[in-house]
């Protein structure tokens, strides 16, 4: 079995068990509809929303914010990690502040982000960034530090310029670490995106959740939660796929 088909089989099996338990609890077991709507009710709500064009805009809004937030986090995370790697003095002076920032409860600061950056897109991206930046930064830095130091000798021997050195040696060497950070960061980004939508705006899966809760539309709430989970799985799956494609040189198994 290939990697992809095995992953699909595994996810499928877990999903099937989950659906069965859900169905049993809401049907034969007799949980009330307003506490636990049946899978069928949730599916039909989602289907109706999809047909009415009320679903995809929310889904794509959240997905886009996550992708943009992750992209911004990756660019800054890699750039910052590279600076710290190149200038060790920076890591000594910045380590304290970075740890303080990282251990600060950023979710608790979310309202402040809204106050500072407004109700629009910027605040959402900033919140995602504040959560996803650190894992990517840390992963990239670990990747850079794990690099064979003699590759730097090679760069000297080949008389490579700073840009060539970065693009052709340091960046590829750090990619395994960046991917570790990205996978952690993607989960954080999802949390950040939904959180931001809870607090402001009228779009996205997070907004859908707060709207459904306020109007007692439990099936819609479940649908939104389910879609958020699926979005997370899709993100994780795509990152795994990208990793398998671009980082096969780093895996220990030999084909």
């Amino acid at each position, binding site marked *: 079995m290939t990697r992809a088909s095995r992953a699909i089989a595994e996810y499928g099996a877990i999903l099937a068990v989950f659906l069965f338990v859900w169905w049993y609890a809401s049907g034969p077991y007799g949980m009330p509809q307003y506490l636990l709507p049946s899978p069928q009710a949730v599916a039909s709500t989602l289907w109706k929303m999809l047909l009415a064009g009320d679903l995809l805009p929310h889904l794509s809004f959240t997905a886009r914010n996550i992708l943009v937030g992750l992209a911004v986090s990756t660019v800054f995370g890699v750039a910052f990690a590279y600076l710290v790697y190149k200038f060790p003095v920076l890591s000594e002076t910045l380590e304290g502040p970075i740890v303080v920032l990282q251990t600060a409860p950023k979710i608790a600061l979310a309202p402040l982000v809204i106050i500072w950056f407004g109700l629009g897109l910027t605040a959402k991206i900033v919140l995602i960034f504040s959560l996803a930046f650190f894992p990517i930064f840390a992963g990239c830095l670990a990747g850079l530090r794990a690099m*064979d130091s*003699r*590759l730097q*000798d*090679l760069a*000297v*021997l*080949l*008389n*490579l310029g700073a840009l*060539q050195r970065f693009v*052709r*040696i340091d960046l*590829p*060497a750090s*990619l395994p670490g960046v991917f570790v950070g990205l996978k952690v960061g993607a989960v954080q980004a999802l949390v950040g995106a939904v959180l931001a939508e809870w607090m402001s705006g009228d779009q996205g899966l997070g907004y859908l959740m707060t709207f459904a809760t306020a109007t007692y539309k439990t099936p819609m709430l479940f649908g939104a939660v389910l879609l958020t989970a699926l979005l997370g799985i899709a993100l994780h799956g795509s990152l795994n796929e990208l990793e398998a494609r671009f*980082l*096969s*040189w*780093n895996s220990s198994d*030999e084909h």
Partner: protein
Amino acid sequence: MIRIEQVSKTFGQGKNSVVALAPLDQFIGEGEFIAIVGPSGCGKSTLLRIVAGLETATEGRITLGTSQLKRPVGFVFQDAVLLPWKTVAGNIRFPLDTSGVPRKVGDRKVEELVELVGLQGFENALPKQLSGGMKQRTAIARALADDPAILLMDEPFSAVDLMTREGLNDELLRIWQATGKTILLVTHSVEEAAYLGTKVMVMSARPGRLRKTYDVALPSPRTEETKTSADYLDLVGELKHMMRDADR
């Protein structure tokens, strides 16, 4: 051509300083094959790294006939140091890709080099799929890619088994004869030094210094027969004696 004048290296400063290399002079002519042999800590790798420009000499001067070039030397590390994300062909062409050689020209050059080091059929293999000997062949081809007149090798075969090592030695001699390069090879094997070199520099430790430079008068090309000849065995004995003597 390599001229080494009063080159020395001291690590650290003041009381904690360690002399890695006492002042050393040596002239190496074009097309010579110099083997540098000595125990660990004798500064042989340090000397090679200074010639390569990877370390700076504390005092003294190195003059290379090729110093006007962007890349004056080719260098082979002790254990290959390949880019793990690139294939054999990708690693060999790395020096070409980073100096703006046109793709077509590079392709031809890579094909030539793959043949020279005997890696046909492995062009698309990744380093993790290669044996130690094959990695080292790839590294040699990479060092030769932009055709440097000087090739520096830092214990290039110490990580491969004896059989492979002897085969690689013969291949190195063939490559040297085919290309006419000036080669500086560091080794801790006296036999290897005597078999390969036109000259052998014997170094000793604490502090690292040059004991003596031998001219090797063995007939060329060197073959399996060379290894049983009286001259070769005498030289090996003499070199060993010199190293032991130096160690005392």
